[in-house]
C-alpha cells in the first residue's frame, strides 16, 4: 500500500464516494471521502492531499465554484483537480473553472486510472 499518496474524493452521493474509494484503494492509493466543501477543507488542512477527484454537481453547491476556490487558495492551488459529471457540456465548464482534467460519468475505470496515474507521476516529477 502506497501510504504516501492520498487522493480526496468529493461527491455528495455516498455510493459514488464508496465506489471510488474502493477502486483507488485497490490500486494501492490512499483515499478519503468528503460529501461537501466543509469536509473537504477539513481533510485538506489536516493532511497532504495529492489529487482531488470531484463531482461537478454537488448537492447545494456548485462544484465549479468549489474548484475555483481551491485553485485560488494558496494552500490548495497546486493540488490537481479531476472533475466528473454526467452533463454532456460539462467538460468546458469544468476546465474553465480551473479543473486540471475532466472525465464523463459513467466513466471507464481504465480511463480514470490513467488520469490518476498521470497526475501522480507529474507531481512526483515536480517534487524531484
Amino acid at each position, binding site marked *: 500500500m502506497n501510504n504516501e499518496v492520498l487522493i480526496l474524493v468529493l461527491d455528495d452521493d455516498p455510493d*459514488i464516494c464508496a465506489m471510488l474509494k474502493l*477502486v483507488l484503494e485497490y490500486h494501492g492509493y490512499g483515499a478519503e471521502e468528503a460529501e461537501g466543501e466543509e469536509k473537504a477543507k477539513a481533510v485538506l488542512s489536516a493532511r497532504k492531499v495529492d489529487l482531488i477527484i470531484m463531482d461537478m454537481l454537488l448537492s447545494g453547491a456548485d462544484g465549479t465554484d468549489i474548484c475555483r476556490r481551491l485553485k485560488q487558495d494558496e494552500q490548495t492551488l497546486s493540488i490537481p483537480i479531476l472533475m466528473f459529471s454526467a452533463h454532456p457540456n460539462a467538460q468546458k465548464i469544468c476546465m474553465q473553472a480551473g479543473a486540471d482534467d475532466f472525465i464523463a460519468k459513467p466513466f471507464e475505470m481504465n480511463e480514470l486510472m490513467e488520469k490518476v496515474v498521470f497526475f501522480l507521476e507529474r507531481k512526483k516529477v515536480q517534487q524531484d
Partner: protein
Amino acid sequence: MINSPELSSQNTVSLDFLSSIENQAYHLFEQAPAAIVILKGPEFVFELANTRALEIIGRTREEVIGRKLEEALPELSSQGYIDLIRMVYNSGEKYISEESPVSFIVNGNRKDTYVKYVFQPLKDDEGIIKGVMVLGDDVGQQVLARKQIEESEAVLRKTKEQLELSISAGNIGIWHWDVRKNVMTWSKEQMEMFGVEKDEFKGEAEDFFKYVVEEDKEKIKAASRLEFERSDNQYEFRIKRKDGEIRWIESRSKTYMDERGNPEYITGINLDITESVLAREKIRASKEKNRLFIEYAPAAMAMFDKEMRYLSVSKQWMKEYDLTGDIIGKKHYELFPNILQRWKDVHSRCLKGAVEKSDEDFYVKDDGAPVWLKWDVHPWYSATNEIGGIVIFTENITERKEAEQVIKESEERFRTMANEAPLFVWETDEKLQTTYLNKAGLEYFNLDESIKMPALSWKKYIHPDDIEKVLRIMNEAARLHESYTLEMRLKNGSTGEYRWFLDKGAPRYAGEKFSGFIGTTLDIHDRREAEKELEDKVKRRTQELNQQNILLKQQNNLVKKILDSSVDLIGVYDTETRIISINRSSLNAMKAKEEDALGKKLVDVIPQMKDTQGYKDLLRAIGGETIHNEIYYSPISNRYYENTLLPLKDDNDQIYAVLVMAHDNTDLITSAKKLNEAQQIAFMGHWDWDVISGKVTWSDNMYNVYGINTDEEINLETFISHVHPDDQANVQANIEYAFQTQTFNDFFHRIITPAGETKTIHARGEVMVDKNGKVTRMVGTGQDVTKQKSIETQLIETSKKFEERNRFVEKLISSSLDLIMVVDKDLRFITINKKAESVLRKIIKDGPIIGEKITDINPSLIGTQPYLDLIEAFKGNIIIRDKVKSTVGEAQYYEHNYVPLYNEDGEVYAVMIISHDITENIRQMEELRKLYESDVQKNNFIAMASHELKTPITSIKGYVQLLLNAFNKEKETQKPLPPLLVRSSLISVDKQIARLTRLISELLDLSKIETGTLELKKEKFSLNELAIETVEDILYTNTKHTINLFHDFREFVYADKDRIGQVMINFLTNAIKYSPNSDKIDVSITRVANDEMAFSVKDYGIGIDKDEQEKIFERFYRAKGREEQTYPGFGIGLFIAKEFVQKHGGRLTVESEKGKGSTFTFTLPVY
C-alpha cells in the same frame, strides 16, 4: 461693385505710398519758393520741374518733361548755360551763380530776367553721377526793382527838370468871358493851347466846352457855377485838342460881379500842366509800382529810410517776420529790439553805400528753430542822388534746404516705384492734359517713351461711354478739393481692346489755383469680368430658385390636399432637414402643429429624433441614398412602419429635398413578431404553399431550421430535396393524402441540412380550397423535434400541451379579424365592417346600426376610456389604446385605434375606430409564458434526470469494472481481490440497480400518467401488512432512523399493491431525506370516517414552508433552499404519489412546520 479687399489694399498702398512720397517730396518740391529742376543723364533730360521753375523758364510741363534741355530751352545754349551744366555733370562739382542775366524765349517772345542758381550734380548710391539738379530763383524782380528804383529816381529827376522847364517857358493862355453878352475872348496862346485856329473860334462858351473831355465836363460845369458865386477860382481839367491830343489844363479865374452880385465877366488864365501832371503821374505810378512791387514781391522785401523806418514792405516780409498791421513809418529796430548786432552792422554799412548779401546764412531763431536765410541788402538813391535808405531782400530757404535732401533721397524711390508699379502713374496739368505718364502707362497705350506729353491726349483712349462720367467726376473733384475714384474702360494701344481700370486721382493746387491731378490707374479688367459673371450667375440662379420656389409652392398646395387625406405619414424635407411640406398624419405622429413644424429643422420640432435611426436615414437620403425599410421602428411614436426616403432632384440633378413616406404597420409587425417569437421558442417555422403557382414561402425560422440561406427560393421540389431520402416517399404520400382528402394530417419526417445534420421535423398544416373544391393553397408549420426525439422520453413529443401550443400558433396564423367602425361628429355610425357588426349585434340584436349613436347602442360607453379617446380623436389626435377590456359582455381584450378623418377644409368630420382583438394574443402570451416556464422546468428536469440516471450507473459500472479488472489481473502478479471486497462490491451494485430501477419506474409512471395509460392492478390486501413490509425494506438500507409503526386501525383495501407500496416508500424516503438530524420517524395507520383509512408518515426534520406546501405536489417541483441540501431524486415522487392515490379515489395531504417536521398522509377507501 463687389469689394475686393486685396485690390483695395493694393491700390491704397500704392497710392498711399505714392501719396506719402509724393506728399513729402512733392509738397516741398512744389511749395518750394525756389525753382527746382532735375535733369537726368548726359543729355540732361528734364525729369522734374516744379511750378516755380516752369514759371521762370516760361514753359509748360509738357514742353519740357522728358525732353532734352537743349531741345526744351534751345535759347540757353547760346547763352552758355548748357556748357556750364555739362561742366558740372562731368566734374561733379557744384556751380553757383549770384546773378546772371538770362533770356527765355516764350512763345516767340523774349523774356529777360536775372537768375540766381546752383547747379548740383546728382549721384546714385555708388557715387555715379546720374544727373544735375538745378536750384535757383529768378532774381529779376530784385534786380529790376533795384533798377526800377533807380529808374524812378531818374524819372523824378527828369520830371522835376521838365516841370521847371515848362513853367519857365510860360505856356499860359488868357481868356475873357463876358457873361451877359456870352462872349468869350481867347488869347493867341490860349488858342494855341487848345490847338484852335483863329478863324475857328467863334467866341462862344460852347466852343470851350466842346474841347473838354467828356469825363471832365461835369467838373467844368461845377466849376462854372462856382465862378458865378465867388470871385477866385482854380480848377483842373482835361481837354482834347483838335489833333486829338489830351492835355491837362489848370485854370485860374477871377469873376467880376455887379452891385447885386451877378457876374458881369470872368477873366482867367489857363496853364498847360500836362507835363507836370504826367510827371506827377509817372512819379506816382512809379512810386505806386515800386510800392506794389515791393508789396507783392514773392520774396521778403522791405524798404527803409535812413533812420531805418519802413517806407514799404512786401507781404512776404510781413509774413516771415510775423508783422501785422501798418508798419510804414515804424522803425525796424523798434519792431525787432532783439535784432542781432551783426544785422545792424550790415544795415549801417549799406546805409553808407555798401552792398551786402549771403546765400546761405544760418541762424537760430528766438524759439530755437534753425533757419537758413538768403539775404541781400543795398542802398537806394533819391532824386538828388543821395542815399535815401536801404532795401533788404531776404529769403527763408530752410525748407528748400530740407527739400533738397528729401528730394535726393526720395527721387530714386519715387522714380523706381512709379515705373515698377503695376499701375499707371500719371499727372495732369490744370487743363487735364497729361504731363506725366509712367512706363506702364506708356506701354499700355503703346506709346514711345519719348513721346511729347502734350501729344498724349488720354481722353481718346477712354471708352466713349465713360468719357463724360470721367470728366464730370474729375472736374467735380477739382472743384471740391477732393480725391476721386472711378472705374473706366481704356483702350489698349496695341490691341485696341477696351479693358476696365480703376482710376484714382487727387487734385493739386498752386496756392488757391487748381493746377492739375496726380493719380494712379489699375487694370481691374479680369477681376471685373469675373465679378460680372458671378453677378449674372447669382442673378440667374436667384431667378431660377425663385421660379422653383413658386413652382414648388404650387405643387405643394396641390399635393398637400392629396397627401392630407392619406393615412400614411408623408413629409418633404429640404437639404437642411427643414420641413417643407407635411401631411396631417405625420403631424399627428409627431404631435406637432403645422405652424410650429413648417420651415423648422426636424430636430428642432422633435429633439428626441436626433439619435434615432430615422434621423440618420434622413441624412443619408439627403446625401443621395434612396432608403427603404421594411420594418422601421419609431421610438417617437412607438409604432412600426414600412417607410421610404426618396431624394428629390432638380433640373440640374442637384438634390433639393427628400420625400419621406411611412406606412404604419404596427399591427402586422406585432403579430408577426409574436408569431416569430412563438415559432422561435418552438423551433418552429412557418410555410405557405401557393399550389397554383407552386411557390412556397417560408418564415425566417423555417430557413433556420433547414439550415438554408433565406434568399433561396423554395418550391415543392426544392423542399423534397432537403428531406431525408428514406422519408421522401412518406412525405409525398402525405401530401397526396392532403390533396385527396383536403385535410392535412400531422406527420414526421427527417431532413438533412446542407451542413449534414439530420433533423426530425413535425409537419402540420391546413388545406385551403376554392369554391370549386380545388386545392389552392396549403399553410402550416414545421417544427424541429430532433432534440425531443433523441431523448427517450416520448412524453414531451406526445404531450397534449404541444397540441395546445399548436392551436395557439395556428390561431396566430389565421389572422384575427379587426373591428372597423366610422362615426361622425355626433357619434353616429357612418359605416361598420362585418366583424364589428357581429360584435355589435350582440348588444343590439335587431334594428339599424348605421345612423345610430354609438352611445345610444352602448350607453355603458359613456365616461369610459374608449369614450374619452374617441372625443380626443375628434380633436385631431390619433389615439392608440392597448389592452382595453370589452364593454360588450365577454372577456375580450382589444387594441383600439382611433384615426381622425379630415374633409377638404381640413376639419375632422369623422373618426375611424379600428379595434384589434388581442384576447387571443393575451391568452397566448399567458400560455406562452407558462409554456416557456414549463419548458425551462422541463429542460432542467431533463438535465437533472439524466444526471440522476447516470449516477447509479456510474457506481455499477465502477464496481463491475473493478471486478473485471481484478479477475483479469489475477493471471498477472496483481493481488487477488479479497472475497470481502467482491461481496461488498456486489452488494453495492445491487443497491444501485435498485435505485436505478426506482428511478426508471418513476419515469415510466410519469409517462403513463401523462399519456393517461396508467393502469392500476387492484387487489385486496392489508394496508398494515404492506406497511410492515415496506418499513422493513427501508430499514434494511437506512439504518440511521428508527421507524415506529402505529397500527391504530387494521383493514383491507382494494388497490394496486405495488403502487401504494411505492407511495409508502416515497413518504418514508422523503421522511428520511428531509430529517438528517433526527433519528425518529413515526408511521401510523388510522381510520378516517366510515369508509376511509389513512396512512401517515411523520418526520421531525426540516419541515416545509407554507408557500411550498402546495407546490411540492407539482410535477417537477423540488423543495428549494440552498441551506438545505437538495436531495437526489427526480422530485416527481410526490406528484406521482398524489396521482396514484387520487386514482384510487383517495387524497394525499401534508402538514408541516418549518424546522419542526412534516406529516404526509394518504387516504384510501376501505374495502
